[in-house]
């Protein structure tokens, strides 16, 4: 009887594949699970939506730097807007300069709207949505970027 050649898969071959597949599958499972394990599900980071103060706290026609939150809040005739101080190049914190902003790490320069004037920064500084909360505080939402036309009108 010439079973090995006639059969599509011999019993021995079938069991071998089950064994090999089982071991490989187990390792692949552990590997994928291990990889997923490395991505945390809960972060104990500061909230991305927070109060920054009453509209009256911000002097007219200038930017106020909120160091802890790493944003500039501007109060202009057209309304309020918030600009991130985090350089889009490599994450350093920019400073206010005569023309706009300057990054101390790699020398990027931005105009007062946060648009790149020179240096390696690939994108303008981020703008975030401002809302007026029920308590009368301005609220910044760092997960909600907006364009440069954004202004929050506060009628006091």
């Amino acid at each position, binding site marked *: 009887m010439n079973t090995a050649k006639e059969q599509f898969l011999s019993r021995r071959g079938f069991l071998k594949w089950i064994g090999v597949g089982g071991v490989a599958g187990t390792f692949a499972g552990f590997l994928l699970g291990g990889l997923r394990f*490395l*991505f*945390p599900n809960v*972060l*104990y*980071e*500061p909230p991305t939506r927070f109060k920054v103060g009453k509209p009256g706290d911000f002097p007219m026609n200038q930017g106020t730097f909120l*160091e*802890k939150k*790493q944003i500039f809040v501007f109060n202009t005739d057209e309304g309020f807007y918030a600009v991130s101080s985090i350089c889009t*190049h*490599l*994450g*350093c*914190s920019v*400073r206010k300069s005569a023309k706009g902003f*300057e*990054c*101390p*790490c*790699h*020398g990027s320069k931005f105009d007062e709207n946060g648009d790149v004037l020179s*240096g*390696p920064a*690939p994108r303008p500084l981020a703008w975030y949505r401002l809302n007026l909360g029920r308590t009368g505080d301005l609220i910044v939402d760092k997960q909600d970027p907006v364009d440069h036309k954004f202004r929050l009108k506060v009628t006091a």
Partner: protein
Amino acid sequence: MKNATAILGDLWRSVWRTGWPRSAKERSLVMTSSLFLHIHPVKVKKRTLRFTTTLGLGMISAFLFILLVVTGALLMLYYTPHPAAAYRSMKDLEFAVSFGWILRNMHRWAAHGMVVSVLLHLCRVFYTGSYKKPREFNWVAGVCLLILTLGLSFTGYLLPWDQLAYWAITVGSTIASYAPVVGEKIRYLLLGGNLIGEGALLRFYVLHCFILPGLALLLIGFHVWRVRKDGGLAAPEADLPSNEVSEGEDGRFPAGAKTYGLMSLSRGPDYRSLESSDPADEIFAWPHLLYREMLLFILVLAGLTAISILFQAPLEELANPTRTPNPAKAPWYFLGLQELVHYSAFLGGVLIPGLIVLALMALPYLDRGREGAGVWLHPSRRRSIAVFNACLFVLTLLTVIGTLFRGPNWALVWPW
């Protein structure tokens, strides 16, 4: 009394199988019967022992690694990997713990020293053409060890949790996010979150104290083992024995001045170099090699201790995520890349370092000529040496500019 001596003697021999070696046989046995010594050959070529053959750079790197493991393990006893406590641990080590300051200095300077010695070791192996067949893969292992060394240094850089640490890691980890497609994920994975906080510090700590040193230890073991298996150091063709041992007409192997082990008959990658043509050219590793190793270790330890007493490791003020120092600089060995990053983050952060690693790994498979192996700056390799020199020059120049000539806002300044 006689009985006591015999018992002590038995005790001694239960630990050390061989006594202090006096004969040739004992000098062989002492090497082959010890776990810690058997990484050495029984005999080495005189050429191998000459200082100018290797400049001792691989050994210096290994010794610095050992010193880093010892000082690092001690530092761990006083270090807490949490943002609220890490900086205080540093201050404690500096001012409160007896000899804490010198251990920290030794660890810091040995880390810088190891980056230097590993880089110089790479240059030595290149300039002597020692990566050529059959040593291609060991060169690749060496490149991996270089990456591990940089990784160890980089992860250690964050642990003091001072301004220097915080911003160097901010810049370094953001570079990772420039990698196409997976960049952001890699950064999230490395930091264990979006910000450099407690998660990031703990991850860097575990990488620095366990995962990376463990990998490095494994790879160092492989690296040295492979040197032995490839027949010791690369040697010029003229120094190698003529060819494989061939059977005589009567079917017996010729009786030479030396007996051949099985390994000289089996087909290895380069079995010729396993045996020296001239037994007189070989001397016992005990004591000649061991003596030199110990001398080098003492010199490394003395040099490191002197530097650590004279120069204080830097420690700036507590990390402040809201205030970027001006200028903010990465560790010196990444300043060449930071200089490139100044022009383009993708170019300097991802493309150039990626190409450097790829080119280094591919080198022994592209440069396939056997000529010039084991010889410093062999004339036949003029072209590849010129290319290597040019790359080395550019990288050094960028590093020097980034280190000394960059001031506030990354503007060009004079270093004085």
